[in-house]
């Protein structure tokens, strides 16, 4: 358990760092964009909303920075992230809770698919080194060098504009009401195909490459040679001996590359106008909606940390060495 405790502590510190960065940024950087926005909105803000924006962005100059910091944590503890300017007068927390399930669904599922698919292909590519599988490497390198959003643009241009097979934008067909019906779920799945494939295609290469290189290293180990000498089946050696050990760096790498993958996935949402956090962030950028942008950052960071913790638990199950000290 010490392993999980250590990791949990680290994630708490990371969360604290992210929140503190969020607190400091608007106070450190020059200019007062939020003040300008409040002036613009004028009388349409009620006093409660005004008060929470003052707390979140440090506009109350009479208070010391420490008092501001305490107030800021208080606001967060109440789930108060301010009002969104883009979706005025909806609170940021409401906007986020509507879009979070879309992102979790799309990014969660595609990341798991990409990881499994890439790891499996990597196992084969590493095992069959020197065969035609080696040609996979330059192809996947090229695919991973394409920015996520550009691949999305191409996908739209080919599969929605030139050959109108799949919808180019949105999370479900216009006119449908979100509900648990076959029609609605079908529409959601149909809309998720293009963005999903885009994310998988651009993120799979990293897993293939990492796994292949580890497989190549591991298959040269003595215990694999012993397994061969014992006359075990190829399949058994490949998965139970080589792959099981080779996958460990991939899993610990999963945690660290997740932040990067999520960044790319947010861009895919922007391109496809998918109703998740990425698209919300995109709308926030256009309107200079700082409460919304900072809220998106906090929620994404929190989601990434939770996913990391899950990956750690997976690591714990696969690698007995981390359990031994417990």
């Amino acid at each position: 358990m010490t392993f999980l405790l250590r990791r949990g502590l680290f994630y708490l510190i990371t969360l604290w760092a992210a929140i503190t960065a969020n607190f400091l940024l608007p106070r450190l950087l020059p200019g007062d964009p939020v003040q300008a926005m409040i002036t613009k909105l004028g009388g349409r803000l009620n006093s409660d909303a005004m008060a929470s924006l003052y707390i979140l962005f440090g506009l109350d100059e009479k208070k010391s920075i420490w008092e501001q910091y305490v107030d800021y944590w208080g606001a967060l503890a109440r789930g108060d992230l301010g009002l969104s300017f883009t979706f005025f007068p909806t609170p940021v927390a409401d906007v986020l809770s509507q879009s979070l399930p879309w992102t979790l669904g799309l990014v969660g599922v595609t990341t798991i698919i990409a990881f499994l698919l890439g790891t499996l292909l990597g196992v084969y590519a590493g095992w069959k080194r020197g065969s035609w599988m080696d040609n996979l490497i330059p192809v996947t390198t090229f695919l991973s060098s394409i920015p996520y959003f550009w691949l999305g643009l191409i996908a739209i241009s080919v599969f929605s504009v030139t050959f109108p097979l799949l919808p180019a934008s949105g999370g479900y067909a216009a006119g449908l009401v979100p509900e648990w019906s076959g029609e609605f779920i079908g529409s959601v799945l149909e809309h998720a195909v293009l963005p999903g494939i885009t994310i998988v295609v651009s993120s799979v290469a990293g897993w293939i490459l990492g796994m292949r290189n580890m497989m190549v290293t591991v298959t040269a180990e003595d215990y694999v040679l012993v397994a061969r000498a014992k006359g075990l089946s190829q399949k058994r050696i490949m998965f139970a001996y080589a792959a099981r050990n080779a996958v460990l760096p991939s899993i610990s790498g999963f945690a660290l590359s997740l932040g990067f993958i999520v960044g790319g996935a947010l861009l895919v949402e922007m391109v496809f106008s998918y109703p998740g956090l990425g698209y919300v962030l995109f709308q926030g950028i256009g309107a200079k909606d700082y409460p919304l942008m900072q809220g998106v950052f906090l929620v994404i960071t929190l989601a990434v940390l939770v996913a990391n913790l899950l990956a750690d638990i997976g690591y714990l199950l696969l690698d007995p060495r981390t359990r031994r000290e417990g």
Partner: protein
Amino acid sequence: MNFKTKLGLGILAFFTLIAVIGSWIAPYDPSAMGDDLLSPPSGAHWFGTTMTGQDIFSQVLVGTRGVMVVGLVCGVLATFLSILVGVTAGFLGGAADEALSMLSNVFLVIPALPLIIIVASMLPSADTVLIAAVISLTAWAWGARVLRAQTMSLRRRDFVEAARASGESTWRIIVFEVLPNLMAVIASGFVGTVIFAVMLQITLSFVGVVSLSTWNWGTILFWAQSNQALGQGAWWWFVPAGLCIALLGTALALINFGIDEYANPRLRKVRA
């Protein structure tokens, strides 16, 4: 050096050349509006024109410099930071190591893209150099992690112990004994950082948080997207810039494979 590495270096040299001479050989002023509106590639406009008749070929040529400058500046700055943090942590060990690796892990885990978007959009003027500095601040952590691991494996080797026994100062040992043995790792970290920085800069330009007054490949894509180039079937507006990004990224990745294979002979191609 194998074919793949040479190919990568060749492509990189090509883009470096374009970055230097691009603005002189561009046939048109990239911002000047012309009479041919949204026309497909032709003899006069190799990559076609935009909605306002700007020449896309010239935009790509002129925009190369911004991309390469950010890549280079971030590569140098972030590599410097990663050496500073990673080698120090790995060599000193103990509490300093705990603190520094915690710092780099925090930077790795926090999603960089939304954070940089927030910083960039709060800056009063998000020009190329400033963006390069902001990107560098988030790009160093991976390199630091790899360097720390590598330094730890070097720290107790005989030649380091010998240097220590002969009374050399810690900094002299780090700079003259340890660093030369880390060159392959540092080089591959540098190339990786350049890829990361280039992608991030293009992304930031594409979402529109970077100043649009200077051209780079991301700005071209920003204008293509905001003018609905896709819906109008104007593929030539976004295909060239995207292909350039992918080519440059592939070239850098190929160079990195070369460095990896140099450092880890097991990865070299087996002759069947």
